[in-house]
C-alpha cells in the first residue's frame, strides 16, 4: 500500500494528517499536538510546510493565512553536556 510520509521524525503519513483534519483538528498547532508533527529532531523543518499545504487543500484556507506553530529553541539538537558546560558570563 502506498503511504506518503509527511513527518519522518514521528512517522506520520499524509493519510494520518487528512484523517485528523477530518476529525476537526484544523490548525497546525492542534495537528501538532494531536500527531506530534514538528516535535522530533527536525523541529518541523521537514513537515510543517507539507502540513500547511494539505491544510490549504482540505480547508480552502490560503497558505499565507495559516498560522505557523511557535518556533522553539534551540533550532538544532544540542547535547545536555554541551549546554551544561557553558559558564555563565557576567
Amino acid at each position: 500500500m502506498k503511504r506518503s510520509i509527511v513527518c519522518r521524525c514521528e512517522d506520520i503519513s499524509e493519510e494520518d494528517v487528512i484523517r485528523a483534519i477530518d476529525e476537526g483538528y484544523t490548525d497546525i498547532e492542534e495537528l501538532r499536538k494531536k500527531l506530534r508533527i514538528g516535535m522530533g529532531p527536525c523541529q518541523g523543518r521537514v513537515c510543517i510546510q507539507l502540513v500547511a499545504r494539505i491544510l490549504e487543500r482540505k480547508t480552502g484556507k490560503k497558505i499565507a493565512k495559516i498560522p505557523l506553530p511557535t518556533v522553539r529553541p534551540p533550532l538544532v539538537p544540542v547535547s545536555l553536556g554541551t549546554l551544561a558546560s557553558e559558564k555563565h558570563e557576567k
Partner: protein
Amino acid sequence: MKSKADVVIIGGGINGCSLAYRLAKKDFDVVVVEKKYLTSGATGACGAGVRQQWSTRENASLAIQSVKIFEQLSKELGQDIEFRQGGYLIAVHDKNEMRQAEKNVAMQRSLGLKVDILPPEKITDIVPILDVKGMRAIGATFCPTDGHANPFKTTFAYADAARKHGAEIITHTQVTGLRTIKKEIQGVVTDQGTIRTNTVVNAAGIDSKAIAAMVNVKLPLTPFRKEIMATERLEPLFEAMVISFKDGIYFSQQKEGQIVGGIPIPEERGGYKTMPTFAFLQHMSQTLTRYAPVLKHVNLLRHWTGFYDVTPDARPILGEVKEIKGFIQCNGFSGHGFMISPMVAQLLTNLIAEGRITEVLENLNLDRFGGNAIEKELSVVG
C-alpha cells in the same frame, strides 16, 4: 454558535473540557468558548505529571480522588489518554526537608495513600540513572501510584466525549464581556456573538484575572512564566517522575521516550513575558546532569514556556464567588491544574447540578483570602 446555554465555560484547557464533559453527561446544555485552540494555554505547555504527594490536605485529597478517575478514564472516554503509573520519587536533601516529608507522608497515609520514605541506597532501585551523591539526597519519598498522562490526548478525549453528549466547543473566539443584572450573570459576550446564560465558569488560566475583572471581581492571581524542555527519544530508562522541592527540578520519561522536565530560573519574577531564556537551558542542563550524569550525552530538542497562574497559597480558586450569582471560578491552579482536573470537574458538576458544597470547595473558595490566616501548599516544583 448557540445563543443560549445552561452553562458557558470560558477556557478550552483540561479543566474547561473535563467540566464540559461531566456537565454535558448530566444533560446540561454547555458551551465552551476558547480564545485560541484547545490546550493552547497552560495545559498544552505542562509537564504532564499526576502527583498525589502534597503538603495540604485539599490538594492531596483532590489528587488521590483524581487518580482513581484517571485510572479508568481511557475506558470511560473511549480514547487512550496514556495514563501510566510509574510513581513519583521526591528527593529529600536535609533534616528540615525530612521532617516536612515525614509530616506530609503521615497526612497522605491518613487519606489512604500508599507512600514510603526511602533510604538513599534505595533511590537507584527506582530510577537507576540517578547519582545519589550528585543530587545530594539523604533519602526520598516514593508513591508508586503517581504517574503521568498525555495532556493533549486527555483534553481532546474529554472534548470529543463532551461533544458526543451535546456540548458545543467553540475555538478562536474571544470573550469580550460578561452581562449581569443585579449581581446575577445573564450572559457572555464574545467577538462572534452573545450567549445568554445564568452560569459562567471562569477556567481561562492566566486570563481568568481579566475575565473576573469584567465584573469587578478581583482574583489574586500572578502569572509566572515557567520553562520546560524535551530531549530526543530514548529507550525506556525509568518510569518514575523525579522531583526536588529544594532544587525545583522535575523530570520524567514520556511514553514516546523523550525526557521532559523543568526548573525555575534563578531570577524568576511574575509577569506575562513568554520568551524562553538561555539561563533556563543552562540551569536545567547543569542540574539535570548533576542528578543523572549519563544524560550529558543526550540531545535536547526544544524548550518552551507556559504559565503557572499562582495564588497566594498555591491552591486553586474554586466555586461561586459571593459577589456575583452564577459566576464560578475554576482557576489559580498554580502549576498543578492538569493532575487534579478529574476531581475538580466532579466537584464543580456537583455544585452546578445540585448546589452541593463539600468541605474542599468551601476551603478553596475565593473568600479564603479575606484576611484570615491561610495554609500554604509547600510541595511546589517547576
